[in-house]
């Protein structure tokens, strides 16, 4: 069974909402979180650790039948060092290497019954990810600037804080197959880690009703 079909099955099993959220609404949000990348060894080799902070924001449209559609952009940017890997040993070459990852993600989801004031939600979607890598003394030919398509699943819970203000926490798993490619100068090819996705835990501040 593919991941996509699992998502579809979960969505079909969701209980119908009893809350009156049948009208159309628009909200905006900003978020901050932490991503742990699937290519653990590769990110750890370059950046020193396989995770890093992400910041973003977006808009969410509330749809009838407790459905929602969101469009979110986020950004991961971190500077490490280029390396050479030999027989499992990583040699830091002290050449600054900056990774910038900018996903644009479209998510469709469902908002469940509230549990007290807490509203759980889940969703899935597709993303377009812009990957940029540049290093000290590099030329345009040395730098990477690519775009990839991936998909993701997410789930979380939202709690209203005020009439126009809510907070949410969600967790997202994403996959960007072959996002890291297999260039000879790619540490990812050494570790056979080609997926640019990961697991992200984020907190959101939502404005709107």
């Amino acid at each position, binding site marked *: 069974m593919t991941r996509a079909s699992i998502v579809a099955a979960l969505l079909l099993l969701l209980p119908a909402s009893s809350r009156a959220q049948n009208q159309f609404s628009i909200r905006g949000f900003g978020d901050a979180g932490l991503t742990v990348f699937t290519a653990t060894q590769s990110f750890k080799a*370059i950046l020193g650790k396989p995770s890093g902070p992400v910041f973003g924001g977006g808009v969410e449209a509330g749809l009838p039948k407790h459905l929602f559609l969101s469009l979110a952009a986020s950004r991961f940017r971190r500077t490490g060092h280029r390396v050479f890997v030999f027989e499992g040993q990583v*040699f830091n070459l002290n*050449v600054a290497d900056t990774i910038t990852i900018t996903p644009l993600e479209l998510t469709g989801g469902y908002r469940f019954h509230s549990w007290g004031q807490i509203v759980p939600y889940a969703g899935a979607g597709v993303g377009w990810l812009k990957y940029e890598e540049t290093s000290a003394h590099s030329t345009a030919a040395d730098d990477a600037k690519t775009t990839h398509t991936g998909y993701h699943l997410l789930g979380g819970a939202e709690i209203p804080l005020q009439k126009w203000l809510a907070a949410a926490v969600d967790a997202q798993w994403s996959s960007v197959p072959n*996002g890291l490619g297999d260039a000879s100068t*790619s540490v990812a090819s050494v570790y056979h880690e080609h997926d640019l996705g990961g697991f992200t835990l984020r907190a959101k501040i939502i404005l709107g009703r």
Partner: protein
Amino acid sequence: MFLSKSAGVLTVVTLALGAVAAQDTAPGFRAFISDVTLPGIDNGVRDADAPRPPRPYPTDLTSRSSGVPYLRGSIIVKFRPGTGPVAQQAMLARAGASKMDAPSYADFNIVTIDDNADPEVTAAAFAQQPDVEYAQARYRMHPMFVPNDPLYSQQWNYPAIDMEHAWDLNPGATSSIVVAVIDSGVAYRNAVLRRSVPAWRASNGVTVFSFPALGVIDIPFAAAPDLAGVDRFVAPRDFIWNDTDPLDLDGHGTHVAGTIGQLTNNNMGVAGMAFNVRIMPVKVVDSLWDDVLGSPFEGTDDVVARGVRYAVDNGAKVLNMSIGRSGPPAPLLQDALIYATTHGAFVSVAAGNDFEQGNPTQWPAAYANSIQGVVAVGSIGRDRQRAYYSSTGSYVELMAPGGNQRAGGTTGGILQQTFDFNFVETYVNGPARYGPPRFDIFAYQFFQGTSMAAPHVSGFAALLMQQGITSPAAVEAAMEQFSTDLGPAGRDDQYGYGLINPRASLRGMGLAK
């Protein structure tokens, strides 16, 4: 011109050799009367000189190049661990050997045999003994360069390997990296040597020339102006004279040292690969002047092996060996190379210049592909094609600019500062114009050979070590992985893994690119 020495000189040299070869702790034979001399004289690029004849090497001495590439009167033996003195003495007696010495910086012995005995036959007999790990004749090493015509040009070799961009990433390493030049010595300091120069004879195959005794003369030495700097040289050692003054009496080692670390951005002359490193001059091969002046040792396998171990024990992280020979293998050199890499030192070895002489296997280069951290370096010309002389074989791993003057003319060689040979090879124009040599007058000369290619790789290794790749095996892997493939796709016997690409190796790997 083919020069050889007289029997009279032979006697003097042989006696001197016998006195010292027995114990390498004996002092050297040289008397330096002063360290204070005028700075070296820079005569600039020699672009108007007539072509010089090939440099001669003496060939008629019993213990020095008597037409065979090894010494008579002694062999090298390594006993297996645990072989007791009684068993060793029994073997010596059976072989007719008289005594045995254990030199410093060595894990083998020098066994004295009859001068009339064939060292190869005696060594083969020793090697048959179950308690002997290896035994061999004391084969002579020689520099791996083809003598050339001194003319001027620019250093095409650095653009050929994109060094300008590589220096952006690592501007010449630092003084924390020590590169040992295992060679004919280096013009590394000022000195005046007072020495008696005896008469000697030489032949060009047709005429025998008699060079008169010069009596007691003062021979001036100076540090190469474009190489020397503050704290530039570390732990100098001379295994030819058995002292700590490895002065170059040939010019080869000074040229090689220049490619490794010639001072750069100093408004003088030419550039070097890793221009901030410290140089360790380790003299292990002798020149004609060393021979004429009566040096106690020659550049045999055992001397070279000791030089390697000395360099490693005294902190060298990179060893350049622009020397070699054909003939039988040299297991003691293999051991020395393994010793170097297991103690954290990378070794660059010239692959050899004998392609047109039947392309015989070259030692110690042929050990390179079996030892991670030792690289055998072939030579390309300005056209990025293998130079006509560059030896080929399964042991060739990388290529670097070594020059090809057949294809590229005089300026197709590698330009570096070394001696002005008009003042060194004073014997070239015959006895009438023969006179004392001077080693304090310099010029920029074009040399070609895998000797000139290997120091590019040594300098490159120094940059990589400075950059953070501290394992010799990893240095080799980084060089090979990012090399520019030449010739047939993939590794091949002509070009190895291809032409070094310092910038790509220094950049290494990013996350995706």
